């Protein structure tokens, strides 16, 4: 189990690092016992490799693949950020929070800002992904392996939509309005299924992006959209931090209320945890964007890359 997990964490290393050291690291993992400490070590060092990439690896990956890695990296971070954003929405959707937002300018302003930025970022994700998706679908008509890759996200979304529909039906058949343990467990299962579905979509789209020849201009469009999404993530993380602080100061009773699927934490603790996920995802997205920017500023004469 830990060996499989360690192999999966290798996929979290930057592309250039994996291309240069990936095979050797896999060989080392096959030769040595894998423990929880190994998994932690790989996770910590994968993050460090993103934040401080060794200079010698700059030329390992060509410009096109660096742009692909940058855009797909931002997409993965956006999915993690959006999951935390959904948690924020579920935590603050009820009427007491809306009333608090109406009476306190900072709370209401931060909440509105997050909603507007979330819509803008989602539009940017769609705008960046659309040309690449059309190219991949067009090519998939002739390439069997690619057909498999593009059908994976569709299947994952269909399964998740089915599960969501089933849970909604079950929830409507229950008369109780109070949060129950079964409801909390169902929400956790639904959340995990959503994360699994997102992971399949991100990984399959990344593989497809690397398998399709794309004109440089479309990669640049995707990169520009990715940069917008990164900026929106940073602004939303700041707005969430302001909201969390303002809630604790202006509506401390609401902040102290029990929260979470099993009512195990308080609202303020949930918001801080969500903020940590947002900051982590935003930082990784900023790193991926910075790496993509370096590729953009390098001269390149080729058209299809």
């Amino acid at each position, binding site marked *: 189990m830990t060996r499989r997990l360690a192999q999966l964490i290798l996929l979290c290393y930057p592309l250039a690092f994996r291309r240069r050291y990936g095979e*050797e690291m896999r*060989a080392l993992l096959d030769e040595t016992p894998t423990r929880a400490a190994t998994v*932690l070590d790989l996770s910590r060092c994968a993050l460090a490799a993103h934040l401080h990439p060794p200079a010698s690896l700059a030329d390992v990956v060509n410009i096109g693949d660096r742009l692909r890695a940058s855009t797909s990296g931002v997409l993965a971070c956006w999915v993690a950020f959006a999951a935390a954003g959904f948690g924020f929405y579920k935590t603050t959707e009820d009427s007491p929070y809306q009333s608090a937002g109406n009476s306190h300018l900072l709370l209401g302003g931060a909440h509105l800002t997050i909603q507007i930025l979330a819509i803008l970022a989602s539009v940017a994700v769609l705008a960046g992904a659309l040309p690449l998706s059309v190219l991949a679908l067009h090519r998939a008509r002739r390439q069997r392996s690619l057909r498999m890759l593009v059908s994976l996200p569709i299947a994952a979304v269909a399964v998740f939509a089915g599960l969501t529909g089933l849970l909604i039906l079950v929830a409507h058949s229950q008369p109780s309005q109070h949060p129950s343990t079964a409801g909390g467990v169902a929400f956790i299962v639904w959340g995990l299924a959503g994360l699994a579905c997102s992971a399949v979509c991100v990984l399959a789209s990344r593989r497809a992006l690397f398998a399709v020849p794309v004109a440089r201009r479309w990669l640049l469009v995707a990169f520009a959209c990715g940069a917008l999404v990164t900026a929106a993530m940073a602004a939303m993380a700041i707005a969430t931090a302001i909201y969390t602080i303002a809630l604790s100061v202006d509506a401390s009773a609401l902040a102290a209320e029990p929260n979470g699927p099993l009512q195990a934490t308080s609202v303020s603790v949930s918001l801080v945890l969500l903020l940590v996920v947002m900051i982590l995802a935003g930082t990784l997205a900023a790193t991926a964007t910075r790496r993509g920017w370096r590729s953009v500023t390098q001269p390149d004469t080729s058209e299809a890359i």
Partner: protein
Amino acid sequence: MRYTSERSTDPGLLVLTSLAEGPKHGYAITHDVEQLAGVRLGPGTLYGALARLESNGLIEALPAEDRRRPYRLTGKGSAALSEQLQALEYVARSGLARLRVAKALQ
């Protein structure tokens, strides 16, 4: 109580010390460092150190053998290791001398 200073367990220094004996691949370096310093380098730490050392020109990769790739010290790496170890030796000698003086005064 055993105290291990951060400097003497710096992965880069340990990897350079291991390679001072001759070219080694990842597994051999991990095993050697464990025998030498009692420190088990995780794969992430090891390859993070190898990447930094290679980037700074202190080590170089040799042609791959199957899935393994041996590394060896460069001239620059040899000089850097020698400098680091001399600095550590100076600290160790000074520390031991001070301890002897303190013991004699007690």
